[in-house]
């Protein structure tokens, strides 16, 4: 078995492998989606390593590039988004070799969504673990949410009644708090770059969320329903934004996930407006709940009961980081605070992990 860097000549074999590994996620093996994610990212190509044997792909380590704006520096990183090994080769050390090869490239590596049983991989390969974020839920319908979590709620008739009445109450609340300054937009331009440059110093460590990233992530993608809600002041100046995507697990629930957001931590009113607007969109789309991963203390402080449920999903929400050969990267990246809302939003998940500790990625054993 060999570990090699991905090359477009391997695209068909890689896609066939990914279709086999992720049968529940059509995007994983879709050529357009793969090319968009792998070859059209504004920050460059993702680190992609293949385990090959006898001309066949038997394992894949896939990263997505990221630029982390740190105090005084910009660090280029790779989000580890997929690690898969063919079932018939899981009694080999293919997964370990892929892990080792990725680390040996000397790049700064990031991961989120690590399940408990895979923690030893990260420990042994010297990844650092930062508990910097929690998950918050706003529940509109407890029934479908419980189904997603594979939990049974007592008093089923009451739950069914709540499933019908609560959305009405939420809609009434949403109408009362309607954020008039927040609108849907689809053409993020240079003013988004200026806003990010202005806000980045107050966010600690934060992924580059300028216009190029927004266009790539939200609007250039070949599939997926993403929306960008933008807050402007009365003069039309950009103040902040929040991005939302809808997800659905057939027969279980439809829900919305905050993909990312940007606003000044000292503007709690604006943050509230943005999350209210996102919740309102989710309600309109018939979602059972909204999920928001949040890290900055100023923002987390706004997500209180009874509107929000805080779910500590360690290690799922923890950031795992392997500083690369770049001098100074360790000191820059291992500090606090971070502004991190969602680093695993394209993951293949079981659905259950939206609520519980469960593997959000393909099986690795």
């Amino acid at each position, binding site marked *: 078995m060999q570990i090699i860097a991905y090359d477009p000549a391997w695209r068909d074999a890689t896609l066939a492998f990914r279709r086999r590994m992720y049968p529940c996620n059509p995007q994983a093996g879709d050529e357009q989606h793969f090319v968009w994610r792998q070859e059209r990212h504004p920050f460059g190509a993702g680190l992609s390593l293949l385990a090959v044997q006898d001309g066949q792909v038997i394992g894949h380590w896939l990263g997505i590039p990221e630029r982390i704006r740190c105090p005084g520096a910009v660090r280029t990183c790779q989000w580890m988004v997929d690690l898969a090994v063919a079932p018939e080769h*899981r*009694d080999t*050390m293919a*997964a*370990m*070799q892929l892990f*080792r090869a990725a*680390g*040996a490239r000397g790049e700064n590596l990031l991961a989120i969504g690590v399940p408990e*049983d*895979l923690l*030893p*991989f990260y*420990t*042994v*390969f010297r990844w650092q673990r930062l508990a910097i974020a929690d998950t918050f839920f706003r529940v509109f319908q407890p029934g479908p949410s419980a189904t997603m979590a594979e939990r049974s709620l007592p008093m089923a008739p009451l739950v069914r009644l709540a499933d019908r009445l609560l959305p009405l109450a939420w809609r009434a609340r949403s109408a009362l708090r309607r954020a008039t300054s927040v609108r849907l937009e689809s053409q993020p331009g240079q003013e988004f770059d200026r806003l990010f440059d202005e806000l980045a110093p107050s966010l600690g460590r934060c992924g580059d969320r300028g216009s190029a990233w927004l266009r790539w992530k939200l609007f250039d993608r070949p599939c997926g329903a993403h929306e960008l809600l933008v807050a402007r002041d009365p003069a039309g100046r950009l103040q902040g934004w929040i991005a939302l995507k809808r997800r659905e697990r057939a027969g279980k629930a439809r829900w919305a996930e905050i993909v990312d957001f940007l606003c000044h931590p000292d503007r709690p009113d604006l943050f509230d407006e943005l999350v209210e607007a996102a919740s309102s969109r989710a309600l309109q789309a018939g979602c059972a709940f909204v999920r928001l991963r949040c890290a900055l203390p100023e923002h987390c402080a706004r997500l209180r009961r009874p509107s929000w449920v805080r779910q500590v999903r360690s290690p799922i929400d923890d950031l795992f980081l392997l500083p690369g050969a770049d001098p100074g990267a360790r000191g820059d990246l291992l500090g606090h605070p971070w502004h991190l809302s969602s680093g695993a939003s394209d993951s293949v998940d079981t659905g259950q992990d939206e609520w519980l500790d469960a593997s959000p990625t393909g099986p*690795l*054993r």
Partner: protein
Amino acid sequence: MPLSALRAVFVEALGLPPDTDVDALTYRSVPQWDSVAHMALIARLESRFDLMLETDEVLDLSSFARCREILAAHGCRFDD
């Protein structure tokens, strides 16, 4: 250090019955020793014997006997 200390780490990390013939173990010779358990074993070895294995050694540690050799290179010698 008694060899029983090393055997105990294998039994604990891999979740093996106490009467397992640990000295004869090789990677994947028992269902419990898969890649995830391998990493748990490495983490347990490093913690118990206060050492840090190189990644090549992590991959090379494919049997109890080989483990004994690798740990000996780190100054951990086990007496039968």
